[in-house]
């Protein structure tokens, strides 16, 4: 028993070392970014003839309530040239009819390019106007399958993947595309910041007024997102080992994605899987490349507010992590894959996949050891305080980075709420998340449920049969 407690202590020390290092890298990277970027540079990039052309891919499944607003806001983004490709993934709520009505779509002849395989395409629609919009109606096959269709049909060299209910800020695309304009040869993917739109006032596909959410579960997720995006992803990106470009908002070079084989349809972690495969493809080919996280382009998305949907999401994420690790197990601890194989993937395995198991078993073992008198109360409480304080350090460090980088939510009461939830997450929420994530193990064995989420919708809903329908989260 005492040996196991020492093992948990060792795990904690490793956790502290790795996460502190990542946070420090993030601080250096954000400072470097802040020094380099300014508004006039961004405008210069936007107006430059080197600004890359972008196809924005929007997979949609039963999204009739908000899809028109999403498309409108995407077409109005501050970017010199982009096309929007909506992929209707066999919706049953009239998504395609709604789009056809709003944008005056008509069916066009468009042979299906053969680069990536996917479920059959039923029809392709284009507007009668000059809008750069293409709507593809296909048989249901999931998000990854829809994205593969979009990649095939995209006309431009860069693809931007977003969720149908995500909202991009006006300049998000320009900021996320800047690394491609600056370094067109090496940059293969960029990801931006994803924020929770729960609590924000959204009108016609735009965030008009940003506020922290009222729901407790959503607030806990705000704390997690701050840590994940400002602390973790920026740090790993600085080390050249970014493993996740969020499915809610990412930009990729289309030719490289096609060369890597597109999205895999047999995993629930298709976004992370693609990024790891891009690393693998480039490293195996000896090709110089960059996969970059850019901290200030913002995409707003809705997070689950109810326990049952959050539970499904976390189980699915965990299962996705496991599937990715299994698929790319050869890269683990393999020096050929540099920081990805030697640092990022082992960290994913130890802290994300095995972490919940080790932490929860550590709690149980500590209780048993206390009852058996193997450790005393003062040591127990000191260790508990250490864990709580370190969690707080990570959160505060990430908040400091966020403040320094973006300066959003500058209100004092917002800071108070975030800190309160950062402390409170240790008293039940964190453990609950670990439990739900462990269920992901079981799901992987069963390979059953995908994980659905009921979305309230961010915008004023269009009255339709879709209201309250269940979609894949």
């Amino acid at each position: 028993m005492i040996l196991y407690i020492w093992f948990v202590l060792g795990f904690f020390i490793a956790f502290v070392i790795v996460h502190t290092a990542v946070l420090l890298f993030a601080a250096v990277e954000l400072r470097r970014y802040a020094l380099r970027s300014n508004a006039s540079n961004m405008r210069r990039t936007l107006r430059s003839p080197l600004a890359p052309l972008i196809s924005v891919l929007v997979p949609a499944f039963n999204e009739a309530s908000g899809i028109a607003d999403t498309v409108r806001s995407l077409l109005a983004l501050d970017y010199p040239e982009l096309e929007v490709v909506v992929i209707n993934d066999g919706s049953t709520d009239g998504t395609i009819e709604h789009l056809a009505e709003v944008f005056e779509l008509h069916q066009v002849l468009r042979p299906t390019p053969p680069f990536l395989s996917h479920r059959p395409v039923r029809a392709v629609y284009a507007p009668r106007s000059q809008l750069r919009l293409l709507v593809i109606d296909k048989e249901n096959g999931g998000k990854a399958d829809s994205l593969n269709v979009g990649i095939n049909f995209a006309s431009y060299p860069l693809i931007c993947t977003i969720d149908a209910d995500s909202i991009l800020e006006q300049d998000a695309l320009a900021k996320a595309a800047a690394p491609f304009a600056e370094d067109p040869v090496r940059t293969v993917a960029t990801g931006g910041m994803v924020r929770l739109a729960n609590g924000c006032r959204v009108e016609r596909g735009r965030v008009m007024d940003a506020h922290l959410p009222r729901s407790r579960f959503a607030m806990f997720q705000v704390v997690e997102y701050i840590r994940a995006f400002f602390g973790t992803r920026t740090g790993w990106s600085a080390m050249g080992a970014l493993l996740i470009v969020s499915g809610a908002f990412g930009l990729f070079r289309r030719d490289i994605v096609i060369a890597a084989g597109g999205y895999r349809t047999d995993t629930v972690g298709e976004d992370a899987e693609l990024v790891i495969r891009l690393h693998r493809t480039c490293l195996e080919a000896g090709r110089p490349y960059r996969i970059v996280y850019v901290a200030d382009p913002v995409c707003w998305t809705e997070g689950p507010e109810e326990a049952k949907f959050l539970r499904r999401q976390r189980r699915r994420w965990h299962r996705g992590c496991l599937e990715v690790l299994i698929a790319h197990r050869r890269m683990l601890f393999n020096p050929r894959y540099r920081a990805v194989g030697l640092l990022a993937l082992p960290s994913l395995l130890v802290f994300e996949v095995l972490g919940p198991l080790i932490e929860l078993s550590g709690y149980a073992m500590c209780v048993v050891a206390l009852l058996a008198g193997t450790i005393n109360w003062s040591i127990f409480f000191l260790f508990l305080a250490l864990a709580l304080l370190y969690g707080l350090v990570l959160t505060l460090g990430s908040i400091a980075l966020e403040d320094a980088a973006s300066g959003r939510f500058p209100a004092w009461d917002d800071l108070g709420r975030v800190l309160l939830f950062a402390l409170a997450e240790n008293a039940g929420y964190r453990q609950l998340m670990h439990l739900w994530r462990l269920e992901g193990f079981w799901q992987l064995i069963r390979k059953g449920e995908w994980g659905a989420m009921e979305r309230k919708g961010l915008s004023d809903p269009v009255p339709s049969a879709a209201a309250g329908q269940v979609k894949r989260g």
Partner: protein
Amino acid sequence: MKAVLEAAVTLLTVLVAVLMAVIIAIRISIRRRYRLERRYRPGAELGIAEYLAGLPRVPEAGGRSERAVLLAVALEALGDLRGSERERLAELIERLGYTAEAMAGLRARRRARRRQSAAILAAVAPASATHALTAALDDTDPIVRTACARTLAEVGGADAATAAIIAVAKRDIRAVPGAVAAVVLALGIAQPSALAPLIGADAPPEVRSIAIEVAGRLRLSEHAKLLRACLREQDEIAAGAASGLGMIGDVRSVDALMDLAGDDRRALPARAAAVAALGSIGAAPAVPLLDSLLGADWPLMAAAVRALCRLGDPGTAALRSAAASSRPEASAMAEAALEP
């Protein structure tokens, strides 16, 4: 064990307190910035708008904060303006003494100040700054060097600018992503003829591929001959050159482009770029070749269909015959292309 844990708890408590202090300090600074912006920005925007509209009143800024806000507003506007309005605003910035301050700032000890000064000069691009910019090419900071090289490309002499770019490319290509692209683009816009040495085979490869792209996108026909020479080189360079020639619309490159498009030893992207260029140029003699490519791999076939669409009657005839043919993919693509 207990002592170690106690020490760690104390250390983390101190760290939490420090981080809290840092957050509070940052937030106070953000709020102060917001307050200053709210106070001075409307006046600055109005003043600049009135000045640009031709009113005789020159915007005034008294204190340091007010001057900083006025400069920020002016630089933002400068990014959006073109032509005489831009020149007028740049002249105003010079008149208010900002460029003189920036030139002096290039010699400052603090790196942040030098970077800020270089950014101001890069935005305004005053001809009077050539000497200060040339001197700053030896700065220890790559961001300062590249910003100055970019500005020199806009305002300096062609030879000095080209030499500066090659120096920047050699020294900073890894340190500042995008530096070379920004400098080469600025040079292409301000002094197109100065791009020639960067397109030639002697230029560093990274600079060369960007220079080729810039020459094409800016449609710099004086470099068509150099681009034609690039068609015989490695596939990536050839693809960029072919696209550039297509954008320029260089009729004299049709034969070379046809050679590239029909050469099955070359990579698909290079051949597809050549096919697209033939379409852009409107090369009617290429119709038989493009027709033969309708049975090729998808990227080549798609490019050939798009090119045929741009070639008028002979292209349409070829597409009609492909639509009626027994090749299913070519037939479907040609049908789609012929759709009104």
